């Protein structure tokens, strides 16, 4: 971080640009949240107005609470996201460690193979995945989603983490070996803590697409018991009429958990990004 003092004008300009960016980025979120607290008429007559005494209405939230089992959808989303995230981080880090640490025949080839998934969207394989899930009887289970999302997240995780693991000092790992630590201890106790910022980066980039995904829940797990929150919100969007209050309320609620997870990871994330930039 630079300690040099900048002229106030430049600082001001920089902040103006940053504030503008924040406003643009937050605008859709702001509109969603604000309108979720208004009556239907108020949403359409003055979409940008804050909810006043006569426009304030919790009908959206009431609908969400009554219709469908939103708490269960929520729980499904959380379970799928957290489990997939855990598996992606665990297996991604383990594969990255093996690729960066051990010399074996086909190491580079294996690395390329694992990274291939970054370039080829997993949705291309939807039909085959569906057939597999039908064959294994996993359709309409959360397991199906967890498996698919783990596969989807791994390539990027392996790619980013193996780069970071290469930068962990060899001497440190070797000192561990001489002191009699097992390879597992070296991995979990010495290497993982040192790549924590990279893990947080991977976590955020993995988590958000999983939480927001509509495609795989729709195809693999559309049943009431396995619905995720994104899929659950769709009941309010009809072909002819949409219950905008309920949609906005559901979306506002769906933002919360990601926000919490993001806050948990963000401290590490910022460190990860700046470390990458400085190195």
């Amino acid at each position, binding site marked *: 971080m630079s300690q040099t003092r900048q002229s106030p004008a430049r600082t001001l300009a920089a902040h103006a640009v940053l504030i503008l960016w924040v406003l643009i980025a937050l605008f859709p979120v702001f509109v969603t949240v604000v309108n979720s607290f208004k009556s239907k008429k108020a949403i359409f007559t003055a979409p940008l107005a804050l909810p006043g005494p006569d426009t304030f209405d919790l009908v959206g939230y009431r609908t969400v609470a009554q219709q469908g089992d939103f708490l269960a959808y929520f729980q499904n989303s959380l379970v799928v996201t957290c489990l997939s995230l855990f598996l992606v981080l665990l297996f991604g880090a383990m594969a990255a460690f093996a690729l960066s640490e051990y010399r074996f025949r086909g190491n580079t080839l294996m690395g390329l193979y694992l990274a291939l998934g970054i370039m080829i969207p997993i949705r291309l394989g939807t039909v085959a995945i569906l057939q597999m899930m039908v064959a294994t009887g996993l359709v309409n289970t959360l397991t199906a989603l967890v498996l698919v999302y783990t596969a989807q997240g791994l390539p990027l995780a392996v790619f980013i983490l193996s780069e970071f693991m290469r930068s962990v*000092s060899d*001497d*440190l790992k*070797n*000192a*561990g*070996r*001489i*002191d*009699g*630590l097992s390879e597992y201890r070296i991995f979990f*106790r*010495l290497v993982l*803590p*040192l790549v924590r910022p990279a893990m947080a980066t991977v976590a955020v980039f993995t988590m958000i697409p999983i939480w927001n995904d509509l495609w795989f829940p729709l195809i693999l797990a559309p049943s009431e018991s396995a619905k995720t929150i994104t899929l659950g919100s769709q009941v309010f969007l009809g072909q002819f009429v949409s219950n905008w209050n309920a949609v906005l309320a559901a979306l506002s609620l769906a933002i919360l958990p990601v926000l919490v997870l993001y806050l948990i990871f963000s401290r590490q994330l910022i460190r990860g990004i700046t470390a990458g930039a400085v190195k």
Partner: protein
Amino acid sequence: MGQLSLSGVTKNFGPVDVIKGVDLQVADGEFCVFVGPSGCGKSTLLRMIAGLEDVSGGSVTLDGRDITHLPPARREIAMVFQSYALYPHLTVRDNMGLALKQAGHPKAEIRAATDRAAALLSLDALLDRRPAKLSGGQRQRVAIGRAIVRRPKLFLFDEPLSNLDAALRVQTRIEIAKLHRDLGATMVYVTHDQVEAMTLADKIVVLRGGRVEQIGAPMQLYNDPDNTFVAGFIGSPQMNFLNSGAMGLSSHSAGVRPEQLQVTDGPAAIGGTVSHVERLGGETLVYVHTQDHGLLTARLFGEHDRAVGSAVGLGFDPARLFHFDKDGRRLR
């Protein structure tokens, strides 16, 4: 105890031969230093002794036990790294005690061993700190302490002082020498610093391109080098190599140490012009450009005034010349 022997040790990374057959005996309690230019395989050889790198051929034995294929932790060795390699999440005490803890020693014994090592290196006050809160010199002392605690048969050092500043380097060097005297342990030490090699070693191994060029005591290598490489590598400033033909000698080239050259005003064996002078206070280095031998260095004691560009003569005692054949081998 700690007698190391390497026989016919080789190492290849794929098609590249990095170590091309090294035979070496290090006696119990001996301080052995590997020197050589960058990339000659010093670290690789050390890591093979440590078990961090597979041995492609040959064998490594320690006290008569074949350790060629043992994992590092079971070789009864300890290693100190250039980058200290302390565990960032452990305190100094835990860093030093980890190996014993892994080996299942009782707590009280580990405590006693770390306290003893800490006292030896004056680390007592730092025992509860994390490595991040230590200076470079302190970190390296902790790393050395971590090695001592294990009471290994063999200490391995890979350029342990390279990351320290000049003053600290001298201080830590003295500390290592003292440690070697106190513990009487066998040590193998890698460096590319002349002074470290000359001052610490009982025995220096000069490596080049994965081969041993010469093994011997520091003064033996200095006064009796086997070839031009060792002659040029040991000693600073470097030995001067004279063109024997131009002086009517039968050898291919003749080496003379800079301190053996006398700079005179009158005619002498070799004539030339002063091209540069370096005054270091205690000594003066005079660089003389000559017609037949290129740039020669003379090392004079005390302060001397020589104007750049002035004509000088260089004299030497012919008995102090080292003669080499055209492959660089010494003619004795």
